[in-house]
């Protein structure tokens, strides 16, 4: 059965000015896939009569009473295998250090102070209505100090500028017409979403770029995160 399904696209006015300002670079410590959060489990001893440090009040050291009985088969990875060249960096992100530096130097931009940022954050979190925010400033509750915003409108503008990669997350409005009903729906560009996520400095310590095969001390394969399992390994080019 063939139906005329018409997809019409209307790009929302807000933005599509090319890709955002990507960036530069700084020598990063290591991209070793090994920098995951595994640490070796210290062998701890159990003793009945441990020596306890005397500390004020009712605390007491019990570092001598940790449990050791984790069967060896379920321990931490002790060796691993990687695909040479997988997840290899090609170059450096333009303006990477500059951007990070700019963020640390002026952490609250485009808001002028932490207080402003927190106020805006409070408004948003508690779902204060636009008219109420305007009323807040009109009634003089915002104080007399210089503020980077004095209306809901400017606050929202600041919020729109807040995310340096906000351009990746633009919504597209589309309509679908199946011959009987026309429905609108919204979507984002999947690739841009990927670029957004993979660029987030916030996740950098938690990011992996290449598959790895991990083994424990008795040489058994360990499967845990996605990159330690077979699919990624097999699909990697």
């Amino acid at each position, binding site marked *: *059965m063939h*139906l005329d*399904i018409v997809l019409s696209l209307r790009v929302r006015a807000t933005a599509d000015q090319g890709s955002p300002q990507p960036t530069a670079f700084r020598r990063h410590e290591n*991209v070793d896939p090994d920098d995951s*959060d595994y640490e070796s489990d210290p062998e701890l001893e159990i003793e*009945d*009569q441990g*020596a*306890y440090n*005397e500390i004020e009040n*009712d605390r*007491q*050291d*019990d570092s001598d009473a940790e449990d050791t009985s984790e*069967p060896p088969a*379920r321990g931490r990875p002790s060796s691993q295998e990687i695909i040479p060249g997988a*997840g290899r960096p090609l*170059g*450096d*992100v333009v303006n990477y250090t500059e951007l990070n530096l700019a*963020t640390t130097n002026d952490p609250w931009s485009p808001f002028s102070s932490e207080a402003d940022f927190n106020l805006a*954050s409070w408004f*948003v*979190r508690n*779902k204060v209505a636009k008219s109420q925010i305007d009323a807040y400033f009109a009634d003089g509750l915002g104080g007399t100090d210089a503020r980077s915003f004095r209306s809901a409108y400017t606050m929202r503008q600041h919020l*729109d500028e*807040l995310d340096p990669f906000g351009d990746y*997350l633009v*919504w597209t409005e*589309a309509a*679908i017409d*199946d011959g009987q009903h026309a429905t*609108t729906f*919204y*979507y*984002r560009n*999947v*690739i841009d*979403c*990927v670029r957004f*996520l*993979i660029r*987030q*400095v*916030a*996740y*950098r*310590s*938690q*990011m*992996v770029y290449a598959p790895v095969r991990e083994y424990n001390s008795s040489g058994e*394969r*360990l*499967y845990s*995160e*996605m990159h330690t*399992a077979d699919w*990624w390994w097999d*699909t990697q*080019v």
Partner: protein
Amino acid sequence: MVPIIGLSDQTHLTNFSGDKKAWPVYMTIGNILSQTRNSPAKMSVLLVALLPVPPKLTGESSRADETQRQINADSLRAVFDLVLAPLHYVSHEGMVMDCADGKTRLCFPILSAWIADHAEHTTLHGIGSKSCPKCEVPCNELGGNPREVYEVRDYAIYEEKARQLESGEAGSTREYFRQVGVKIGRNVFTGLHRVNPSDLHKPDLLHNIYLGLFKHMMQWVEGFLKKHKRQQAFDDAWKEIPPYPGFSVPKKAYREVTQWQGKEMRNLSRCISAVLASALRNPDSSQHHDFQIALKCVSALVDFSLMAQYRSHTPDTLSYLERYLLTFHQTKDIFLEFRTSKATRAEANRQDRELRELIANERAHEIRRTSAAKRRRQADQERLQRVNQRADLIRRENHFNFIKMHYLSHFSSHVRRFGSISMYSTEIGELAHKDQIKEGYRRSNKNEAARQILSHYGRQHALGMRLQTLDVLLKAENVVAIEGTGRETAAAPRRILKGRMKNVSTLTELCRTCNIDYGDIMEEMLRFTKQTVADDHPLSSDPTELGLLPVEQFTHLEIPVADFQETDVFQIHRARSTGTMAFRSGGPRNDWVWIQAGGEDSYGDLRGRGVAQLLALFKIRNVFSEAAGVRRLALLRVLDPINSGRFHLASGHIRVGKRRSGREMRIVDIGTVIGQAHVIPTGEGQWIVNHRIDLRTFNEIY
């Protein structure tokens, strides 16, 4: 490579009225480690699309419905084609992307997982509701042998066949599609480079195990208990479940609960096998065999579900997983008679009615000629006939062929290919709904809601991301600053005594609050003192001197216990000992704890652990010796393992019992207390050790 993980779930926006629905699609990437990815506070799950919710079927005529269904499927496909379109080119050629660590990499984003519930999968994959998206298992073998391997679905072939169909070759092709349970041309994921749609399905702990199989299993168990008249025993055991950290004690009797939530189901799964073992104690000879198998079956499913939650697997644990599943399948037939589907029950009722009418008709003819006694005899016969017929039908029709049963067989291969199962839970999607959709909807004026939802969360997201970025950047700076001076390692948490009791200052008073004989405690104190090594500043060995030492009593002990498969995350167990005093308007609470009693090899499967009840926690200060200072001690009632700590064969549990001989009480240093234990009383001074209470205990006792 960048594996994309998609999530989708249709959801209701309003709680009580109206039927506003939304169909959000989220995505995240597999490069982010699961701990971050699955935490809603980290905001790493992005909404990529709000799909149009298809109009409901009117149900006026089946033809109109069929048309509508086809329209819905076609529009869904069109929408997905549009949303996934950017992937086509990039997954072939790759794309140089900026990465978080300041490097650029050639990235190949590939759709690798789609997390959704079964209903969603059937819609998206275009398969029948009784077919598995992964393999071509026929619907009457869903409950079959888990070792059986079926043809993996190849959606490319379906596509091919569908094209043939369009060019005119009907007949056999339609039959083929019907056989494999596929609807023609409705899979939304076909045609993506390097994506095998049959790989997208992920096992789901919440829906499949907790809200699926456990729910079914409880019905069977109820039927089983009813048949063997153990309902009361089960309820009694249910009420006696002791508290445990992270486990909320059921407040109602089992039969009083009408609605089960995911969390309650999870709680139930942690204790069900021990409770059942307690309810089914002392079987008579005819029940012995059945009880044993029923327990085995329940335990196997619980073991399976616990094992599936492991965050790190080895071939060893996977083989355990497979073995548990096999045991479950081998033993599940014990519950077969209680697994009656609605359709079967209706059919049984119908046959019942027919037979009754038939007999009534027959009787109408001959009723005058028979005596009362004969009539009665006949009625008995009829009843017997009806009962037999019903039982026959149920035996014939009952089966375990439902899709959730079949999914279990994919679990272990999934771990090998995609890693641990718990990180693909549909719960992530459900949490995302709350933040990203429902909050926004509530805030909106319900008019043109979609747009308001999107912009509302956009703002929150921007704020949150900025805070996280700042956090990471500032931390990085601090680390550099500190490194020069030598970084401090986080101190391991300590054991802490808390809740000082008033009015206790000597051993005599301690005995009074705990209702213990002074002579006993003094004897124990002396023994404890003797054990203490000489250079460790032993307490005085003179009873009168001991009796004068200042004592403080406490109500609870905080024990840090490392989380399972973690080294630096600790869970605090609060073992309480309130003596004879009431705990929070309830009765007194004296918790069960594990104590380190011997080496790894003693006490059988308990591996050197003993179970004990806390009677009192106290601190004693040796005022006579300057150097000795304070001792922190626990008074315990120690239980002995039965059968020297081995698993009880029939029930698969370890039992402990009251000491028959020798000292029951012991005083130990609080360092000996390892953590809280979960034991379920079975009467007669015996307890069942519930080692399935959490993953840690489960891993250590097996």
